[in-house]
């Protein structure tokens, strides 16, 4: 399969992301942007008893960034909140499944780099407080 055909598959994936959207009353919210290309990502997480019960991304971005965000969300859904700091960009880039130049790798890394910061040792109360600081 040619690189163009592979990229077309990524484009189609980006049009039907499983975890796109926003969560009202999310426990954790964060965002990030890549200034050179204008990609913007927002994360919304619902956390209960240390488990990510719901996760959504709102991407105003290219297909690579959207697909990356969706793969990240899939990894995090229903998983312990500690996993937020353990997502490996190399694994996500591999899962996207096409060759990405260093510039395009930045698009894939953005959703990982702007995931919410969370310390698992803090309780739900602390988590609510942090929401306002993000």
């Amino acid at each position, binding site marked *: 399969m040619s690189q163009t055909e592979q990229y077309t598959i990524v484009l189609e994936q980006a049009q039907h992301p499983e975890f796109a959207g926003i969560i009202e009353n999310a426990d954790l919210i964060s965002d990030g942007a890549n*200034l050179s*290309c*204008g990609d913007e990502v927002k994360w919304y997480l619902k956390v209960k008893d240390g488990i990510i019960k719901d996760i959504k991304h709102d991407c105003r971005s*290219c297909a690579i960034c959207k697909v990356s965000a969706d793969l990240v969300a899939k990894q995090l859904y229903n998983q312990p909140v500690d996993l937020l700091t353990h997502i490996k960009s190399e694994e996500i880039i591999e899962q996207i499944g096409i060759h990405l130049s260093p510039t395009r790798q930045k*698009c894939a890394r953005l959703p990982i780099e702007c995931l919410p910061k969370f310390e698992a040792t803090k309780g739900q109360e602390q988590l609510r407080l942090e929401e306002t600081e993000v």
Partner: protein
Amino acid sequence: MLKFDFPIFKTRPYLVYFDSAATTLKPYPVIQAVANWYENCGAPVHRAVYPLAETSTASFEHARGVIARFFGAQPTNLILSANATASLNQVANGLNQSGWLSSDSVILILEGEHHSNYLPWLKLGENKEVSLVFVRLNERGEVDLQNLTSLLDQHKNKIKLFALSQANNVLGSLHDIQAISKLVKQKSPDALVLVDASQSAPHLPLQVVQSGADFMIMGGHKLYGPNGVGILWGNTDALSKLSPTVLGGNMVSSVKKDQITLNELPHRLEAGSPNIEGVIGLSSALSYLENINMNKVTEHTESITLALLEGLKEIPEILIIGNPNPKVGIISFTHTHLHPHDIATLLGEKDICIRAGQQCSGPLHESLNIPASCRISVGIYNDSDDVTRIIDALKTLKCSL
């Protein structure tokens, strides 16, 4: 067929290069001039007395003369730097350090400027050394002359400078510098006009003195010359208002423990070892353009741009930004379904090069309410086959969705 003059097309015969507003490809004479300097000279300029260094100095200063003549300037008024950004910073900081700007000074900046003609002024404003006032663009992406007039009346003699580009690097619009300079001088006789001509100089015959501007800045690598050379032209009065912002070798005529005497122009504003081979390469590039004739270059840019616009209009998913002036050779657009990066990547797979992103113009994209754009920009090597290739490729994108 100018492509024959550019060795890259021998190595990559299917290359379609539409990113000349970012940087141009280099023709044989430029590459040969750089290689020739390394092979036959390689010595420093200005201070050493042995024959090889004398040759190097003569070649370097001859090159400065060729560059100056191309733009209708005197060599002493031509300050060479590392790039257009360095030259723009040199003017902003040089005017500030000389004390010519004060806390009640007003600097006019045109909306939608490239970051390099915006951030140096923004920094001065942040430090409260000056006030920044934006001049509006009209619906054609050109200077809103009514708004400019009213700002000139409002701020009168507080205005110290108007900074604008001659051609916008996203919108592809063109500003009438002669008319604008005349208007500024009528209303605020002491105000200086600074023009970033980086995007216009590669396409239009440019005579700096006749433009009426006080400073004009160009990047050598956009003029088919090597990377690492910026051109700052200023009239003698304007240059005299600049303090040297970089101190070191060459810019002083004498140095004692507690006293320095500055060198004459242009050396006073050129501290340190220059990019000798780059400047020589740039003079070859301008001689090459002179041989083609800049009026023919303008005609070529215009005809390729018009053909591109015609082709793009056939693709309903493509939304052209603004009203590009065909003489500038810049067309920016968005797509109803695809992000600019995805378009540029898919075209790149076909060896078609266009720019995607914010083109170092974040505030303009913000005011247009778009995250990014695609930009097609024309060079002298582009031909009708290139136009067909890119339009067909963009139509295919439509089919693949």
